[in-house]
Structures are given as C-alpha cells and as structure tokens.
C-alpha cells in the first residue's frame, strides 16, 4: 500500500522495469474486469492476416454452387498404402456433352477407366491420373522455401498440339500474396492480392497471351466476416462476377452468384444452398438459365459414400441424372 501511494505521488517519465510490474496490480484493484470486455479490440494495422490466394477468392461460392455434376455411373476406389501414398481406380460410364454451335446439346456416350497415384507430403504433393486413351493429368505442388511455392498443372495427350501446361510461382508475404504464371501457347500472367483491413482484401491480375497477342487486366475484392463472404471481380475482357455467401448456421450455407459477360452479352445469376449434415452433404442450385441442379453425397459407412447427381435444363430440355459410389478416403 505504502509503496504504491509513494509511486503515484511521483510518476517517473520512463518507469523502471521493477516498478512497472506494480502498475497492473494497482489497476487491477481499481478497475472492475468487466470493462475490459467492453473495450473494442483495436485493429493492429501492422499484423493483418494473410489473404486467400487470388484464384481462390470465390472459394466458398464455387464449393457451394458448382459441384461436379455428371451423367451416368461413376465409381471411385481409393486405396491408401501409406499415410502419404495412395492409388486410385475410377470407372465412368455415361454421356459426356460435346460443345456444339447450335443450341442443341450433343451427347456422346463414353466410358473410361482412370488410374491415379497420389503422393501427399507437407512439402511436396504429386497427383497423377492417366486414362485409357492415354491422357495424363498431372499436378505438382512443391514448397521450395517457407514462402515460395511452385505449382505445375499439366494435361498431356497423345495427339500433338493438344497438350496444356502451366507453371505457377507463388510467393506468400505476411499480409500479401503474389503469383507468376507461365503457360503453353506463350501465356504469361501475374497476380497480386493484399489485405487492406482485417476483413477486406483487394487484388489485381494481368495476363498476356503470346500467340493471339491479347492482354488483359482484372481487379478483385473480397470482404468476409465469420458469417458471410462477398466477392467481386472485374476484368478487361468484359467479365464482371459477383458472389455472396451467407453462413446461416454451422450446417447450412446459402450462396448466390452473378456473372455478366459484355462480349457475348451473357448474364447469369444463380442461387444455391449447401447443407452439411452428419451423414450427408446436399447442394442444390437454381439458375437464371432455367437450370435446376442438385448433388447429394451420402455416407453409408466408414469410407463408403453414395453419390446422386441431377441437372434439369428446362430451356434446352436436357435432363441429366447420375449415380455413383466412392470407396476409400
């Protein structure tokens, strides 16, 4: 008591460390602890969180609104040999849509068997899938240092001039990310995204296509709180994309999406829901093009999932139903 009163009588400009420990004790006696909760958390502008990568800015909306719809039978079997290494066998029998000039949809019955191998390490990820017709899908992700990552994405075919590949170099800073891309057909791209507030991040990208001498620039913004995510993207190619996802509860999310393409005068809006329940995940969506779709993944047992997919296009009179099973993690 005596020591604290004498200290308060003569406040020293830089308090010596020995006396500093007495301050919180004295204040703790004077102030009630409840006011600490009322004091707002001050924004630390020097320690903003690292933003999501530029290509994942619409991640929540894409996960809820764009499941992998298919038509036909699908069977996937994943066998783990190791914590890090696994093989996968996948069979598909059904119709695949072939893009056509007219408004009619052309469906080609196809079937294929796909063999895949995955190696997942914290520092190195290798995923390869090869189909019966010789096509190879390869993905490599390698952490060269703590902040620099190399990603390679390639689709190689037996036909000449149809293969595609893309190299990405990602650098992650404390509150920004930047990426440089090199692709085949002389494609060069770069993007940069920065956290400007605890909830807001802004980014931009530029790209250049060598063979067609086309270049473009785009801007993106993402605002997210714990309950909602809103994103917007504008590009010089004439595309505007907006999305909004609201997390209504732990199990339910609602999402909406708007896309406007100025060159083709295409406008699409869609609304969807995403229920993540204990035994199943159900995603449904309705579109402004008159497309209603739904995707159900039901967990029958440990490691066994049953999948149902449905897409009904009222305008084009195209009805797609698919079923399948996934065994393994």
């Amino acid at each position, binding site marked *: 008591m005596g020591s604290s009163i004498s200290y308060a009588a003569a406040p020293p400009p830089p308090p010596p460390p020995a006396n500093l420990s007495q301050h919180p004790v004295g204040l703790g006696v004077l102030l009630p602890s409840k006011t600490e909760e009322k004091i707002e958390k001050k924004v630390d502008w020097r320690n903003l969180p690292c933003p999501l990568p530029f290509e994942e800015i619409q991640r929540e909306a894409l996960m809820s609104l764009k499941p992998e719809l298919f038509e036909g039978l699908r069977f996937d079997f994943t066998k783990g*040999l*190791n914590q890090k*290494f696994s093989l996968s066998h996948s069979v598909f029998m059904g119709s695949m849509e072939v893009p056509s000039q007219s408004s009619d949809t052309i469906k080609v019955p196809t079937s294929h068997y796909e063999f895949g*191998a995955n190696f997942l390490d914290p520092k190195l990820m*290798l*995923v390869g899938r*090869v189909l019966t017709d010789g096509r*190879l899908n390869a993905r490599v992700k390698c952490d060269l240092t703590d902040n620099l990552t190399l990603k390679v994405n390639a689709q190689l075919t037996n036909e000449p001039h149809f293969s595609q590949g893309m190299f990405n170099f990602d650098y992650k800073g404390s509150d920004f990310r930047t990426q440089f891309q090199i692709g085949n057909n002389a494609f060069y791209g770069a993007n940069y995204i920065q956290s400007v507030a605890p909830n807001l991040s802004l980014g931009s990208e530029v790209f250049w296509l060598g063979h067609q001498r086309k270049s473009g620039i785009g801007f993106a913004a993402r605002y997210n709180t714990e309950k909602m995510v809103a994103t917007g993207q504008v590009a010089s190619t004439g595309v505007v994309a907006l999305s909004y996802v609201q997390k209504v509860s732990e199990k339910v999310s609602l999402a909406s999406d708007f896309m406007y393409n100025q060159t083709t005068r295409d406008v699409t809006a869609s609304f969807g829901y995403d229920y993540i329940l204990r035994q199943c995940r159900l995603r449904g969506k309705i579109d402004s093009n008159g497309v209603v779709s739904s995707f159900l993944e039901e967990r029958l047992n440990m490691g066994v999932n049953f999948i149902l997919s449905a897409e009904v296009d009222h305008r084009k009179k195209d009805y797609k139903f698919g079923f399948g099973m996934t065994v393994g993690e």
Partner: protein
Amino acid sequence: MAPKIGKGKGKTGKGSKGADESSIARYVKVWSTWTMKRAKVVAHYGFIPLIILIGMNSDPKPHFSQLLSPV
C-alpha cells in the same frame, strides 16, 4: 582507298555478325523446341512411375504386393 576498304570490311563484318546472331537465335529456338518435345514425352510416360517410385520408398515402406491387391 583505304577508308573505302575499311568501310567495306566494316559492312561485311556487320553483315556476318547479323547472320550469326539470327542463326544463334534460330539454333536456340530449334534446340528449345526439341527439348520441350522430349520433356513432354518423358513426363507423359514417366510421371506416374515416378510417383509410384517415390511413394514406395517413403516411410513406412509399403509392400510390393499392396500395389496390386485390392485390399
């Protein structure tokens, strides 16, 4: 006379250097295309065996029979 000869020599010197530079650029382009074609074939045939090789040598080492059996 002497300056004219010098000029002539200079011109031919520049011309031959230009031809060298364009041929070097052509040589680099042809060589890089050849490398990319060979690299594409190597990646196409060797990527999945490479993953299997790395996976079979990681800890804990899986047995070879586990590769083929469905269990």
